[in-house]
Every structure is written in C-alpha cells, then in structure tokens.
C-alpha cells in the first residue's frame, strides 16, 4: 500500500449511518475494548483522572502553601522499609510539661488562661523567699529512638508578673543521653510585667550553635540528639528578691518540642518541606486540564476550518490550507518563550498559544473527510432538497467526522501536556499553578539532583510519559476504529506523529 495522495480524491464512504446512535455506541465500545492498548490506555487515563479530581480528598495539604511538614527533602515514608533508613526520624511533636516532674519549694500553683487563646498556663507564684534566689524546675524526660534528626524546634509560651524589685529568669536546659548539659536559652532578666510571648528555640539558629561551642555550619540538631537514649529537658525558673510582701509569678504555657521527620508521605517533601504527593496530585490536575482544554480548543478551531475549507473549496480552501502551512512552519516553543517573556506567564496564554499552533492536523483530517462526504449521495440528496450549507454541514457532515475529531482530540493532548511541562520546566510557567514541569524545575533548582532525590525527580517525568502513552494508545485505537480510510484520505500518516511527540520538547 504505497501512500496515496491525498487531497481531493474521492474515497468510498462505507458508512454505518443507518445504525441507531445507541447501538452505534455499543458497537464502538466493543471495538474499542477489543484492542488491549485502548483498554489499558483508558484505564490509565481513568486512574489519573480520578486522582486528579479527587486531589483535595487524597491529601490534606496545599501543594504550595503548606510548608515545614518535615525536614527539607525528607524521603517518602515507605523508605523506612529500606534498612538504611529504618531509623530515620519521623515527625514528632512532644508536649513537654503535661507530664513534667516539678521540683521546687514554696511555690503556689494554679491555672490561668491568657492571651485570649485557650492556652492553659501553669501559674507559679512564690512569695516566701527570704531574699535568697528561689527556683522551680520543670523536668521532662524524652525518649529518642531514631537516627540524629536534621532539625528541632522548641516553643515555650511564657509570661511574667512581679512586684517591683523582683527579678525573674527563665532558662531551658537539655541534658543529652550522654549526660552533657546544654543551656539552650536564657531569658533576659524579667522585671515587673512581661506579657505573653512564645519563645522559639530553633536548631537552625546558627548563633545558638556558635554559642554552644559548635561551628557556624554544624547541624545543631544532629549534634545534640546524636544518639538514641533518654534526653532530659528542664525549664528552670528563678526568682530573686521575693519576700513576704513582694511576689513573682511565672505563667508557663505548654511547651512543645517538634522534630520534623526525615520520612514523610507517599513522595516525601521538597526543599521547603511542602508535600510532594500533593504537588503531584495537583500537577496531574493541571496537566489533564491544560491538555484537554488545549486539545478541545484546537479541535474546535480545526473542525471549523476543516469543514469550511472542505465544503467551500476554491480560494477559501486554498487560503485556509496555506494559513495552516504557515502555522505549521512556525516553531512553537520559541514563540511560547517570547510570549512568556513579554506578556506574561499566565496559564491562559499557554493554552491559547498551544491551541493556536495545534489545530492544523485536525483541520486537514476534517477537510479530507468533508471532501469525501460532500460527494456522498445522502449529502447530495440533502443539497438537492434545498438544505442550506450550514444545515448540511451540521446534520450530515459534522456527525460523521465526530469519530475522527475525537481521535485527533485525544492525540493532541499529550503534545499539549509535554509543551506545558517543558515551559514550566524552563521556569516560564504560571507561577500560581502546581504542575509536573514545575516540580522538575524546582527539583533542578533546589538541589534534588545533588541529594540524589530520585523520589522527587522520577514521579512527575514518568507520569507525563505514562499519561502520554496512554493517550496515544487510546487515540490510535479510536482513530483505527473510526475509519482508517478517512485518515489516509486526509494524508496524515500515523508514523509522522512520532516526530512531533518524540522531539518537540
């Protein structure tokens, strides 16, 4: 079967137009599922679509705005089954003073609520000191069983009230499993009223590391929590100058120790601790949306132009087809780069531009089909009966091209998805949109390669590939079903499609 040219040639129209629409559908699906590629492809697309639509149900996190969920570039949770990461820390959030041992004489305790929030405070009042400093120690032992963490954060809400002449201090100490004592924080002298504040002690505080005798670049968390064992955390509260008529009151809210984990979720987290699984899910949304909207727009444009061109013929046909040629010979990616650079990186721009540059294939297919249909007896009959061109096109031509149009719609999607991903990867995508291309852009910009974070790099890329293959299979199956002859009449060889998908990026 050498390639037959092409336009204008009459092709016998073996139609199934007599069959009712209902049974036509059944016929179609039966044919469709006979092809394993079509079935598997449709299955894959369905899975992606379900994940994309269900994204808000499948993840509690916002893909971009929820950060610090775990330590930067934490691995996927399932990697704990690898012996190497069995001991990796998982996110821990320890309430410190609930079960603290209290040690100190002469203190009166109470509860109070402050700050308009439902934060419960231990109220510790002392008013019986004989001028000597008095102290209260809240002590909590924490069992730490994992490998050294990357980060820890203490939060300590406190407030102070004191009569004139009374000075208070608060101090946080950590005694390591090895028995070393580190003073993590000391408050400034507290006099009179100190309103509620939340002290934060962060292991990324480089100045703290230096003060504790470590190097500026040392990781404080892994230095301090270096081995499994029991760690003692002490909050030491001291008062000076209390007496019968001068008292001091500490308000201590629930202190917390948070150790962000090294393992998190199905795909881990990115450099700022955002959930990659959410990014992947919402990326699937964006990809499918961009792909189908672009393809749909392109197909609408293409069908209109194809029908007009084929039905009208003459100079209109000539002009439209030459315009198609012009569009075909302009490289899309550079145009998209220039547009992104000049009028902005909005997703709408991407879609419109991609649609403008991808209607030509559909137009040709539809044009050829229209040419063939125009000579069919039922069309000629309609024309003889005085049907307007619009009526004839609407009633007799468009319905028959629907299958081809559907096929070319599906086949346009992967190209659009890949083009959008490429643009995002180059850093020219819509900054408000989570996309797979952007995941890869971030992976490359923020050190995923240096960390060999394959769980960040592989999922988006392989998903694009898988989705493209699935769409290709489905499209080809549909295409095969709906009349291979028409496709050939339109002069589009299936093989050349490889070119545009293979290297357009």
């Amino acid at each position, binding site marked *: 079967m050498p390639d037959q040219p092409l336009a204008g040639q009459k092709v016998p129209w073996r139609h199934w137009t007599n069959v009712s629409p209902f049974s036509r559908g059944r016929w179609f699906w039966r044919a469709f599922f006979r092809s394993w590629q079509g079935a598997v492809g449709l299955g894959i697309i369905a899975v992606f679509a379900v994940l994309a639509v269900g994204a808000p149900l499948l993840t509690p996190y916002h893909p971009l705005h929820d950060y610090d969920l775990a330590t930067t*570039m934490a691995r996927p949770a399932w990697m704990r089954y690898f012996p190497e990461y069995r001991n990796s820390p998982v996110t821990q959030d320890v309430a410190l003073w609930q079960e603290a041992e209290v040690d100190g004489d002469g203190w009166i305790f109470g509860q109070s609520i402050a700050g308009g929030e439902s934060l419960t405070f231990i109220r510790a009042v002392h008013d019986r000191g004989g001028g000597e400093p008095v102290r209260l120690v809240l002590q909590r032992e924490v069992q730490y069983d994992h490998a050294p963490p990357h980060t820890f954060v203490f939060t300590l809400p406190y407030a102070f009230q004191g009569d004139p002449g009374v000075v208070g201090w608060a101090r946080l100490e950590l005694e390591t499993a090895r028995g070393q004592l580190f003073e993590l924080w000391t408050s400034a002298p507290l006099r009179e009223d100190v309103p509620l504040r939340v002290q934060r002690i962060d292991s*990324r505080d480089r*100045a703290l590391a230096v003060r504790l005798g470590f190097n500026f*670049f040392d990781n404080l968390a892994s230095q301090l929590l270096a081995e499994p064992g029991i760690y003692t955390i002490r909050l030491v509260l001291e008062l000076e100058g209390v007496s019968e008529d001068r008292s001091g009151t500490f308000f201590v809210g629930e202190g917390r120790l948070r150790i962000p984990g090294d393992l998190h979720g199905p795909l881990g987290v990115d450099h700022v601790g955002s959930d990659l699984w959410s990014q992947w899910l919402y990326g699937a949304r964006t990809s499918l949306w961009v792909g189908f909207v672009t393809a749909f727009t392109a197909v609408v444009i293409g069908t209109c132009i194809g029908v007009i061109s084929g039905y009208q013929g003459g100079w209109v046909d000539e002009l439209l087809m030459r315009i198609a040629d012009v569009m075909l010979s302009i490289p899309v990616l550079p145009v998209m780069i220039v547009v992104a650079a000049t009028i902005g*990186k909005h997703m709408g721009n991407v879609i419109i531009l991609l649609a403008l540059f991808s209607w030509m294939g559909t137009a040709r297919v539809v044009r050829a089909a229209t040419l063939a249909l125009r000579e069919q007896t039922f069309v000629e009959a309609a024309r003889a009966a005085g049907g307007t061109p619009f009526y004839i096109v609407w009633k007799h031509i468009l319905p028959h091209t629907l299958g081809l149009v559907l096929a070319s719609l599906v086949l346009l999607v992967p190209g659009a998805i890949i083009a959008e991903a490429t643009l995002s990867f180059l850093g020219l995508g819509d*900054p408000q949109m989570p996309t797979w291309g952007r995941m890869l852009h971030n992976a490359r910009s923020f050190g995923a390669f*240096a960390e060999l974070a394959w769980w960040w790099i592989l999922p988006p890329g392989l998903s694009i590939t898988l989705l493209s293959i699935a769409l290709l299979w489905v499209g080809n199956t549909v295409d095969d079903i709906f009349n291979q002859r028409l496709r050939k009449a339109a002069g589009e060889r299936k093989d050349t499609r490889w070119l545009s998908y293979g290297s357009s990026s």
Partner: protein
Amino acid sequence: MILRKWLTVLLMITFMLCMSMGALSAADGAWDGNGPYVDEIIMPIITDSEARYLALLRGEIDIYPDVNRPSDIRSFAADPRIDLTMTPGLHMFYMGFNLQREPLDDPVLRRAMAHLVDRESLVFSVFDGYVFPLAEAVPESSPFYHRTAHVAEYDPQLAERLLNEAGYVRGEDGIRVDPRTSKPLRTLTLITPTYEESPTSAEVAVRLAQTFQNAGIPVAVVSLEFNTMVERLLRKDPVTGERDFDLFVSGWGLARYPLHLYTLFHSSFDVNGGNNVTGLRDAAYDAAAEKLWRPRTLEQAYEAAAEAQEIWAALQPYIPIYSLTYIDAFRSDRVTGYVEHVGYGAASNPLASPWTALNIRRVDQPEGRGGSIRWLLFDDPGTLNILASYTAFEDQVLGLIYDSLITANPETNEDYPWLATSWVIDTWTTESGEEGSVITYQLAEGVTWHDGVPFTAYDVKFTMDYLKEKKPPNLQAVWQDYSHSIVHDDLTVSVYYNTVSYWHTYATGGFLAEHIWSDVDDYESFQPWREPHPEVEGLTKLIGHGPFVFKEWVPGEYIRLVRNESYWRSQG
C-alpha cells in the same frame, strides 16, 4: 529583646572571626602580604547551580563564591575537603509600605504590622538559618549601624494591643475595622517577584501575607515579573499622584556607606520614576538624610546616619527582614589564604575587597607561591568594560584587574590607603561662589599599568575628565559633582568638586589608562578585551594596575588571568 540578644551574639561571632584573622595576620601577615601568590586564575563560567555544586565536589573549581542554596551549604559543610566562610553582608531585604495610601498612612498600623513579623522563623524556615534577621535600616555589618530604641521587634501581643487601642478591632468575620471609615480593612496587595525569578522573595511574601491575614489584616500576594514589578513600584501617576500598590518585598545590596538612607527615602525622590517608592515625606528625616549625603567629615556622617536611622525606625517606611551573609566555599585541600571581609565576604566581591585575590595561594606549591587556581564565575561578564559594567559578575573579574585609590580594612572596613598613600581634604570656592570639596591625593610610587606604562596623577585627571565628558550612568556618583583636577607632579593631584561632601574622597578614581582610553570615543561599545594592545604582544586593551592581567575569555566557558609580574605591592 530576643533580637537584641541575637545581635549581641552576632557581634560576638564577628569579633571571633576578626580575632582568628588577627591571629593569623600576626603570624604571617595573612592579609597584608606581598601577593599575589598564584601565577594564574582561571574563572570557569558555570551558570547552572547544580553544575556549580558538582564542579566544586569534582574539583573543577577551587573557589565557589556566594553559595546560596541551603542544600549545597549543608553538603559542603559535611565535606572535609571543603572549607566554608561566613561573612555578614551589606544587604537588606524588606517589605515596603505605600505610605501615601490609606490605611497604611497610619504609622500605628505600620508599627503593629512590623511587630507581627517573626523574622527568626522566616530566616530559619526559608533560609535554613543562613541569613541574619534584620530589624534596622542599616545592617550590623556596616560601621554606620546604629542601635535605636525605636526598632519594632517581633511581639504579636504588642501588635494586637496597638491595633485594638487604635481602633482596628476585629469585626465578625475576623477582619479588622478601619477606625477612619468604620468599614472592614480593604485587602492590601503585596507585590513580589515571581517564584521563578526569586523563589525566596516569593516565599517570604506568601508567609508575610499569611501572618497579616491571621492577624485580621487582609493581604493578597501579587507576583510580577521583576521589571513589571519595578515599573509598577516606580510609577507615580502624574495626575492622581498615586502609586498602585500597598506593600512590596524587595532587597538591596548596599554600599560601605549608608547612602541608601538618602537615595531611597529623601522626599525629593518621591516623584514619578523616583526611588522613594514608599513616598516617605518627613522634614526632619529629609534634613538628616541631606546631612548624610553631604557631610564634611566622617564624624558628621556618623552623626547624620545615626539621626536618620533614629527617625527612620520611628517612621517605619519598611519592615526590614533579613540581611544576607556571604558564604564562600573553598577547596581547603588545594587553596589557602582567603580573607574574610566584613560586608563583602571572602570571595564574593573582589572589586570591593582585593584581599583574597592578593593572599590566596595553593597548598601544594613550594613556599606557597605559584600554581593556578580556579575561581567560579556565575555567569558571563557583560563587556569587561569598566564604564559599561552593570553586573556583579563583571565586577568580580574587573576587581582582579583594577586597583582603587583607597580600599577598606577587611576587619573594620576603615579606610586603607592603596594607590593613594595619603590624601588631604579641603574646601575651595567655586566659580558660582559656592563652597566645594577639594581632595589632594598622594599616589604610591612604582605603580605601572599592565603594559609597563607608569600610573601617574595624569591618569587620575584623565579618568575624572573623561567621566565628566561621557557621563556613564553607572558612575554618576563619581562625575555629577566633579569640577576639575590639577596635577601638581607625577604623583600628586588635586581633585575639585562643586559641592562639599566627605564622600567625594571615595568618588575619585584613576582606573582609565590615558594612553589607551584617550582614543576611545564611543565608550559604550568599546570592548577592550577584544582589541589587541597596540604595542605589547599578548595583551589586550583591557589593562589595569591590579594584581592580575587579563589574558583570555572564551564566552560561556572561562576567563583566564595571569599574575601581574610587576605588581606595585609585591616589589616591597
């Protein structure tokens, strides 16, 4: 209070660093040597951050200036072959207000918002702790840093109280009410560069917006391309006199002298296209800023800077957020002798700090002399034409080729006599009867250009006259007040300015070789490195008097410089 403690610690670190350096210099004159010591500097040009990282690990480069990805810093810190230096930078990142729009014209609201910003949390979470929180108008690495009581530290309780007392009480939906209109506050727009252009700025902006939102002040983030953003900020509608934004985040690299207090906040710049985008108009502040812009002495400058900062903090036109640190990475198994310069880093700004270039040496060379080092360059320098240079990469190369008249002590940032061994500041009366500065420089002996021609007072005069004639925009500060020069002898020159300012001392330059540049008419398209030297073979017209001589540039690949054999300082 927390912050103050923090800053004390910061001072301590700086002090410790200086101490360690001082110890070194006492032993072998670490930054006062007779360098340069290496024979050749190759500057590989690597634009991709991954490739840069890999290049240092693989040993393709020895010096990686200004490492800014936290993941790289962590990885380098763990590598025994790599030494990292950390130097507080002269830099400020901030959120700015539009002071001429309601409701932000209310200082109480601005103040309260400033108290809401948890700088430490931002610094730890976005930057992994590798930058320093900043609450003042001048970073602490500057000698002009002034500690003022007016600084708004993180204190959400105080913010809450301020807001409530001023009538910004929460409505039913949680949004605060504007006491002047009794309506809920309108949503403020916070303008930020896009994620792609500046990921950290965008990140900070989003988090700030969340903070304000939680406090009942609705803020929406609008990310714009950098140029669109700048256009929007600078545009002051000629008719309504309004600027179309409420809040914005941005950062500036600052100079050794805090002249940004004048150029960014003086009311004369509150015009369409002017830099005073916040629209600050305050007579007292203007007076202080003017004093800072035209001080007669350094003492006056210090005074004026302190006064300006004092007023500035109370006015709160910005919420300063952080100040960058220069983190430079060295393959310590190959090179040694790098010098940390407060405010400029150890390898990030050769134009401002010549010390590392002069002192760097290879560990494997006998007596530490000779050999070749590779010093990473982030991108192609534009033109290597000192009059048309705009990028930091360009300055990085030019800094090795040119010397300045006066440089700075790396530890204290005090003046360090260089090509000018001494100078005398005086005044004169201009033709229009105004008072102006005149500075007489005594130049060092034995300085030659790379082609052997002596560097003299005539080159200084030529440079200044040439600049005055051509008016290159990037050197405006140099020529705008310049009048004329008088050469007394080969090594003595008096430079006359039309106004009085202590800063004129540093404005004077002598970097254009008269015998090369006198023929250059169109300075903008002059590509000195592309044109062979008329007399000396192997040289181009890109010649200076600095420690290294330009040899070769393969665009996109590397730049090669060799040691200046007749460098004036190495002759003893």
